[in-house]
């Protein structure tokens, strides 16, 4: 290895320490050396791990499954490291800091998901599987056909998740320390490739363990500092949240007109009640289904169970993972609420609209604020953990996608399982390089895109395609190749298709309408009386735009004055500009004019775009599917199609293999053994 690894890290360190790359960001320039020092330490640790792991990574089993020598406890930490992505680590704390209760409720599903993994997936998969999802399905079904669809699905799910991680990571690092987006993406890509290509699963596992431990340590430390002033009392802490003026202002902003009749205490209490963020219960149930059933179908999570020696260790690893992941989400309640009262929702959204900076900003506050050395050291530490998070999650995903490509497609389908051991390892490394390069390319190509919904889509595809196939292969005798192929294809395609027709997509005409508002402003509105809720035409109308949807009650609203548009504001400012004499005021006016001109340009572009291109990606003018999450429909459909396909056609091998599969998944006879060292 190591020349290339060292070159990679040297390149990265050089980039990190060059001042030109580090303008802007949440960390002030004079404190940036601290961030880079912490980054350097973490990168050095992971490089050492890779160096050590590379010496023990020669065979296929070592490359994909760390020689099945990872202990249950280690694997539990690694699963937590794999699962607590930047989205859940920073995103959920952010949601709680902005929306209170709903953010916390959102976190619950991510833990409950592991019950499915524990009870029905982990142990049987360890007992009958080898390296990939495709191996499990090929046990009793036609190997070539099922490995092909399993690999397609694995690569699809991994790519969605990977894109979200790469784009989110690039934006995050830019927001935190001001390194250019492209440089961050390339840096993450090179580091991750070094881990995967040289150290395989062993390096990936240990990077994930180190990262999970850092993350948990950082969170416990922050919660200690945040909660201690309230004597570690839950009601005491929440009372401070309720009484906080910044929280009350945030709730007033969120509830709009209804706030006029509420006392400050009531506004604060509202922060601890549901309904500020998650407004559609059906959509939420749909997301909950994708999480609860999707996690068990996530290829990079499934793959982790092949790294332990026995099914008992697989069980132990899920238990540990549940303790770590659940404990972490309970801590985020305090991180999020702590950020809300100490930093304030308005300041959090000023740095990042989605609230992703809540955790890092809280760290800075706890250490003593933006000008203190300790505050910036804390911020540096959290930023470095965030960076390690992205690298660790991406490494796991690349390994999963590469194993599908090399082990399922190349070795299984193309070579008909006749590749030499050496050939297999080379194929695995080459596939990792291909997937890694692809991840960097996609990360850069998707710059500026809204990719948040891609994580939910990855879970939805895994829940609609992978889970029904694995579950029914393990537990239903009649399942066969036809059912697997039909169910996986229909499940994946319907999940993706529904999202393409959903409100997640960009609809040019709706964008143009908003742009018009920006340009021309809004007319004055008279006071309105309260409108009671109107029932819709039935349940189906809540899902598809084919009939009338139910409308919620609207509270009475006061008269609203007209809002001026950007054009009008610009004209006024330009008129006023020559009369301004104060230098500071003049700079501000110039800045405002520049901003308005930018807004106007963007709005005009949007309107022009909508003229030529009236529809979204698949030719819709407005959403046809009304939920943001397709799981409610695509998951049952995936299950149904596996059943229908299996019942329509007979496959003798699948039925003959049932006894063997069922005995082996329950007893572990002939399970792949750990390699001797």
């Amino acid at each position, binding site marked *: 290895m190591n020349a290339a690894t060292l070159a990679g890290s040297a390149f990265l360190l050089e980039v990190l320490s060059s001042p030109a790359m580090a303008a802007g960001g949440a960390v002030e320039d004079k404190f940036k050396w601290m961030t880079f020092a912490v980054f350097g330490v973490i990168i050095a640790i992971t490089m050492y791990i890779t160096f050590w792991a590379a010496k023990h990574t020669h065979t296929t089993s070592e490359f994909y499954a760390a020689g099945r020598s990872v202990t249950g406890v280690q694997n539990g930490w690694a699963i937590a490291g794999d699962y607590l992505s930047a989205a859940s680590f920073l995103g959920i704390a952010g949601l709680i800091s902005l929306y209170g209760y709903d953010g916390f409720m959102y976190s619950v599903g991510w833990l409950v998901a592991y019950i499915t993994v524990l009870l029905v997936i982990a142990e049987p998969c360890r007992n009958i599987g080898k390296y990939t999802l495709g191996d499990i399905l090929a046990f009793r079904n036609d190997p070539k056909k099922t490995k092909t669809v399993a690999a397609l699905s694995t690569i699809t799910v991994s790519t969605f998740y990977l894109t979200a991680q790469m784009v989110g990571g690039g934006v995050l690092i830019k927001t935190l320390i001001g390194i250019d987006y492209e440089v961050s993406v390339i840096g993450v890509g090179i580091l991750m490739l070094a881990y995967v290509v040289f150290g395989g699963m062993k390096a990936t596992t240990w990077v994930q363990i180190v990262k999970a431990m850092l993350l948990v340590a950082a969170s416990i430390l922050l919660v200690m500092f945040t909660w201690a002033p309230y004597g570690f009392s839950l009601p005491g802490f929440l009372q401070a949240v309720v009484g906080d003026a910044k929280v009350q202002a945030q709730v007033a902003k969120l509830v709009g007109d209804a706030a006029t009749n509420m006392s400050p205490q009531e506004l604060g209490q509202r922060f601890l009640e549901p309904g500020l963020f998650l407004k559609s*219960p059906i959509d939420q149930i749909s997301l909950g289904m994708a999480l609860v059933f999707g996690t068990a179908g996530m290829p990079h999570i499934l793959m982790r169970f092949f790294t332990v020696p026995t099914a008992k260790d697989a069980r132990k690893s*899920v238990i540990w993972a549940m303790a770590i992941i659940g404990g972490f989400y309970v801590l985020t309640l305090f991180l999020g609420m702590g950020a809300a009262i100490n930093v304030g929702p308005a300041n959090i959204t000023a740095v990042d609209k989605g609230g992703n900076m809540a955790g890092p900003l809280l760290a800075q506050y706890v250490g003593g604020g933006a000008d203190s050395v300790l505050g910036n050291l804390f911020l540096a530490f959290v930023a470095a953990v965030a960076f390690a998070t992205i690298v660790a999650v991406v490494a796991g995903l690349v390994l999963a996608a590469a194993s599908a490509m090399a082990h399922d497609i190349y070795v299984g389908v193309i070579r008909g399982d006749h590749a030499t051991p050496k050939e297999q390892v080379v194929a695995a490394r080459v596939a990792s390089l291909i997937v890694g390069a692809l991840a960097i390319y996609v990360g850069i190509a998707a710059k500026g895109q809204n990719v948040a919904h891609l994580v939910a889509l990855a879970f939805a595809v895994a829940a609609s395609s992978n889970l029904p196939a694995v579950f029914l292969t393990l537990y239903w005798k009649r399942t066969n190749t036809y059912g697997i192929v039909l169910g996986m294809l229909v499940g994946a395609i319907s999940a993706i298709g529904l999202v393409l027709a959903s409100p997640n997509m960009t609809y040019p005409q709706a964008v143009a309408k908003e742009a018009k508002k920006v340009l021309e402003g809004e007319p004055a509105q008279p006071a309105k009386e309260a409108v009671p809720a109107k029932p819709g035409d039935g349940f189906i109308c809540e899902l598809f735009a084919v009939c009338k949807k139910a409308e919620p009650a609207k509270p009475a609203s006061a008269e609203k004055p007209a809002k001026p548009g950007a054009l009008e504001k610009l004209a006024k400012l330009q008129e006023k500009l020559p009369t301004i004499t104060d230098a500071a005021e003049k700079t501000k006016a110039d800045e405002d004019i520049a901003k308005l001109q930018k807004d106007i340009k963007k709005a005009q572009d949007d309107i022009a775009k909508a003229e030529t291109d009236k529809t979204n990606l698949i030719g819709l003018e407005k959403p046809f599917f009304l939920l943001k999450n397709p799981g409610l429909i695509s998951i049952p459909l995936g299950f149904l199609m596996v059943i229908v396909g299996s019942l329509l056609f007979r496959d003798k091998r699948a039925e003959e293999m049932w006894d063997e599969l069922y005995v082996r998944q329950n*007893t572990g006879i002939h399970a792949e053994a750990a390699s001797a060292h």
Partner: protein
Amino acid sequence: MSDSKKMNWAAIDADPRFQALHRKKAGFLWGLMIFSVIYYFLLPIGAAYFQDLFKMKVWGPVNVGILFALSEFVVAWLIAYVYSRKANAEFDTMAQAIVNDAHKIGG
């Protein structure tokens, strides 16, 4: 895998000890699984349709909704604990007995 050819899988499957393991495990796992799914979906359902209940304050500003959300974590951990106790104590022993005799059954 010449080794797997030696096994008489159908005979092991039909063995009363394996059947006992299968029945015990299936009943236990399905029960826990159904309970956990129902308990989880009570949270979004309660938050959407039983807001008055969720808003009821029971411990200072702490309301039923917050306690219920926290209870989701406790219940998930309890399920994990209950399952691992049962599996470690019972299922593993039963499976081991079958593994030990596997070559003899039907052979």
